[in-house]
């Protein structure tokens, strides 16, 4: 799918990777902070800002996000409603603030759960090999052949509208890229001497996986998490925009853009501002992701 294009190209099973042993070098924390490039810091600050907004939404919001006010419908920005009100007289600013509590955790889960499933399945496929490997890889072939997002629409339809359906659909369709990445990493790490040494020392298979393979593999997978969070956030917003995501009246950025679109002639800010909010989060996450990617390349 979208992320897999460059996911797959990154790891050749046989290529030597100097970054593998870098984990052993102790680095004190202050030097890590100094080594993070500017864009990483900016990205991190943006993401942190969104987390804080989500945590303190009740403090920041000026109104109840779902309270309907039939008198002040589609109001322009005023001191009372700094971004005006929507068709039902709800305060747009407060809805945007509260939507952070929906979009942020769901975007994160929508990337994290597939990653978790993919890492687990990829590690199993790579480590056990044999029929476990063939079954997992065969299934991943089938999943990958589908236009995943189209299938998510069908799946969400079948499972019923709502956050849990979307996250479930993301998870069973989004794990493939991670599984392939981790599998090839495991195959590579497995061939390295120290894993053989550990085996001779009589460690159990699981322990080898946990102590020797996992830490090496996980750093690779983590690098792709931020960009997948961006994808998941955008996709969640898109499904809500289509009326197939988070059901009303819960505030959600994508759904708010859909609500605002009919009024762009008069209340242009209605559809514009939630989009800017999404772009901000996406940029912040992308900056974090790029920084992580570059750090791994070095």
């Amino acid at each position, binding site marked *: 799918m979208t992320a897999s294009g460059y996911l797959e190209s990154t790891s050749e099973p046989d290529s030597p990777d100097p970054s593998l042993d870098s984990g052993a070098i102790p680095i004190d924390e202050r030097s890590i902070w100094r080594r993070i490039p500017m864009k990483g810091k900016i990205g991190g600050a943006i993401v942190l800002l969104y987390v804080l907004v989500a945590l303190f939404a009740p403090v920041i919001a000026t109104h109840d996000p779902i309270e309907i006010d039939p008198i002040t419908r589609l109001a322009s920005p005023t001191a009372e409603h700094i971004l005006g009100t929507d068709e039902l007289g709800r305060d747009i600013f407060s809805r945007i603030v509260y939507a952070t509590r929906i979009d942020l955790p769901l975007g994160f889960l929508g990337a994290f759960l597939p990653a978790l499933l993919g890492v687990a399945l990829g590690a199993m496929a790579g480590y056990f090999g044999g029929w476990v490997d063939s079954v997992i890889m065969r299934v991943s072939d089938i999943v990958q052949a589908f236009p995943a997002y189209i299938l998510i629409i069908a799946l969400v339809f079948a499972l019923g509208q709502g956050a849990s359906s979307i996250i479930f659909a993301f998870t069973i369709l989004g794990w493939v890229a991670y599984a392939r990445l981790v599998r090839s990493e495991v195959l590579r790490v497995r061939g390295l001497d120290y894993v053989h040494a550990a085996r001779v020392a009589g460690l159990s298979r699981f322990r080898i996986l946990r102590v020797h393979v996992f830490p090496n593999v996980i750093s690779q997978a983590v690098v792709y998490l931020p960009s997948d969070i961006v994808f998941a956030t955008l996709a969640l917003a898109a499904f809500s925009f289509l009326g197939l995501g988070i059901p009303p009246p819960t505030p959600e950025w994508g759904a708010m853009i859909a609500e605002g*679109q009919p009024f762009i002639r008069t209340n242009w800010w209605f559809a514009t501002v939630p989009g800017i909010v999404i772009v901000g989060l996406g940029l912040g996450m992308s900056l974090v992701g790029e920084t992580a990617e570059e750090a791994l390349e070095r």
Partner: protein
Amino acid sequence: MMLGIVLVVFLLLQITPGDPVRQIVGLRATQEQLEEVRAEMGLDDHVLVQYGRYVGQLAQGDLGYSYKSKKPVTSMIADRMVVTAWLLTAGVLMTLLISIPAAIAAALYRGKAADQVIRGAGLLGLSMPAFWVGVMLLLLVALPTGWFPPGGFGETFGEHVRSIFLPALTLAIGSSPFIIRSLRASTISVLNSDYVATGRSIGGSRSRLVRRFVLRNAAVSSVTVLALEIGFLLFGAVVIETTFALPGLGQGLVLAARGRDLPAIQGYTLLFAVIVVAVYLLSDIAQAMLDPRVEIES
């Protein structure tokens, strides 16, 4: 491969909660009427029998009848296919018009200002939801200029062109960052190759070098990436058709999903899967045409 897709689409019917028959006959129908329609539709039969029948009908090009409009799904799809074909063709063309010059410039001026600007724009493009970009184009381009209709597909060829311009641009803004990213990387590796050194040593202008020695070789690896993006493009089409009220396949799928019209959803999903497979095939052919080393397997 296709059979697997058919199976998954069929299974949608099985896991969907609720009684499709009840949906057709309405809430006021009696139990007898309900049973009668159920038997008529063959929903009493064993799952495998139903599956066999479904595949048999598919083989004859029969996708069943819409629960909503009672029309054959095939005819609904045929009308909408033209619109989506327009959108995808124009969208891919615009993507290439944006991506190829941008990627080549970024690769030639790697690390310089042009590269930074293009990468920054790519990051921004990745972070923007397509439907919001569409709304913004309506707000900032369509409304002030009046050149483009705010929605619909029009009747004449000229109207089609004007209707499709902004949606295709929206699609291109969303997909270009991926293509630029991959084309930039492949162009850089081509620029570092021995044969480009040969091309340089022969002399001539830089644009001739790019045309004769770089472009085709860089395209070879990017064709596959473009093909892998088709799933993303199709989802983009779904979202954009909804944003611009284009009566295409994507809008049809969303309307079917909102209306819980199962045969229509199955039909659309199947068709999208067929498009993906067809595009993969096309990309293989394109690759063989671009790269003399690749032979088409008969």
